[in-house]
């Protein structure tokens, strides 16, 4: 697929054209932080930012999502009505998504859609109707460690198209059919531009200062890692809040709740997190992960061992570094993984 080129001052026209077919979202400055918002003016779209404050996973997996509505109706043949929420009405396009966040969706695809039974239509519908146009990272921040997590500043996994910011112009690389549709009508890129994009990627990769080792984590058995002594120290200062899981692009645990109002009600799913004591609590009062240590260990083991074991080596982390920055007690995932790998 040929690389295309788009002059930055034509961005408004380009996005305007896309808006005819899609709801377009992009990172913009909201309350001083880079955050996702619908695109209204193309010059508000950010180009120089490390990553959005929170992950874009709520586009596909909203924090609160209505799954179905029900109503007890006596005269209905079934005695009640249970209706799944309708699918998304419009196509959407996420512009300037970071490659690490896109990679996270590819990891989640493996979990949400596995077979006939494990087939999350809420997730799948939103994924199918959304086009991801990525923005290659030219200036990774010190907390990023994507290159250690099968990802990178210009990783293409999960993306439909990837954009390189070359100053006054953009190099647009279509990667899928959806991406081709987006890049349609643009001029071909010159070789020099392609070279510049390569150059930029190399420079960005070189700039990533943190790396973590996974080799020994991969070698060791589940039980060997589970019983490692390092867990006795990792959990000490953990508050068991849910910050790390809620800002994480790959954390996907949820809770299902029923809510009623008179005769009718709805079934909603909400983000939940393995840090919560209630998360695994049995009705009998027995709790398989009753101690803080168990819960902290679960989060890291799940990402770095359980998912790789079950999903052909895919890691449940993309190295976006959000939890590193936002953990209230600075439990640094890089340090934890290095300890697991020690």
């Amino acid at each position, binding site marked *: 697929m040929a690389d295309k080129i788009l002059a930055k001052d034509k961005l408004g026209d380009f996005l305007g054209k896309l808006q005819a077919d899609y709801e377009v979202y992009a990172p913009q400055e909201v309350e001083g932080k880079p955050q996702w918002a619908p695109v209204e003016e193309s010059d508000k779209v950010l180009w120089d930012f490390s990553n959005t404050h929170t992950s874009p996973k709520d586009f596909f997996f*909203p924090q*609160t*999502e*209505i799954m179905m509505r029900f109503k007890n109706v006596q005269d209905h043949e079934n005695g009640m009505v249970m209706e799944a929420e309708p699918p998304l009405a419009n196509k959407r396009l996420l512009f300037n998504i970071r490659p690490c966040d896109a990679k996270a969706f590819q990891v989640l695809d493996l979990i949400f859609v596995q077979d006939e039974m494990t087939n999350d239509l809420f997730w799948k519908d939103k994924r199918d109707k959304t086009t991801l146009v990525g923005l290659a990272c030219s200036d990774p921040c010190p907390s990023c460690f994507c290159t250690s997590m099968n990802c990178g500043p210009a990783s293409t996994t999960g993306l439909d198209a990837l954009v390189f910011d070359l100053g006054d112009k953009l190099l647009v690389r279509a990667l899928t059919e959806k991406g081709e549709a987006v890049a349609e009508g643009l001029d071909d890129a010159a070789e020099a531009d392609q070279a510049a994009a390569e150059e930029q990627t190399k420079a960005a990769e070189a700039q990533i200062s943190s790396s973590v080792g996974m080799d020994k984590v991969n070698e060791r058995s589940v039980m060997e890692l589970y019983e490692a002594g390092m867990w006795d120290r990792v959990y000490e200062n953990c508050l068991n809040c849910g910050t790390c899981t809620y800002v994480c692009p790959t954390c996907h645990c949820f809770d299902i709740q029923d*809510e*009623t*109002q008179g005769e*009718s*009600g*709805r079934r*909603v799913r909400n983000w939940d997190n393995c840090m919560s004591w209630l998360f695994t609590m049995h009705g009998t009062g027995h709790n398989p992960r009753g101690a803080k240590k168990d819960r902290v260990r679960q989060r890291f083991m799940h990402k770095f061992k359980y998912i790789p074991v079950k999903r052909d080596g895919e890691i449940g982390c993309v190295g976006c570094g959000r939890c590193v920055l936002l953990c209230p007690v600075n439990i640094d995932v890089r340090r934890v993984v290095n300890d697991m790998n020690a």
Partner: protein
Amino acid sequence: MKSLLEYVGIEPGRLHFSWISSAEATKFQETVVEVTESVKALGPAKHMIKDIRKVA
């Protein structure tokens, strides 16, 4: 509690506290009237209601 709810914007007239002895039937009746009038004057509550019909 009353003070905090007012602080976040619930109207003062929506929450009432009173002391009535079991012998004070008249005070009871008067207070009911007063509370009802006060809430009536405010109109239907707009905040804090959990409405599941809304799309989240």
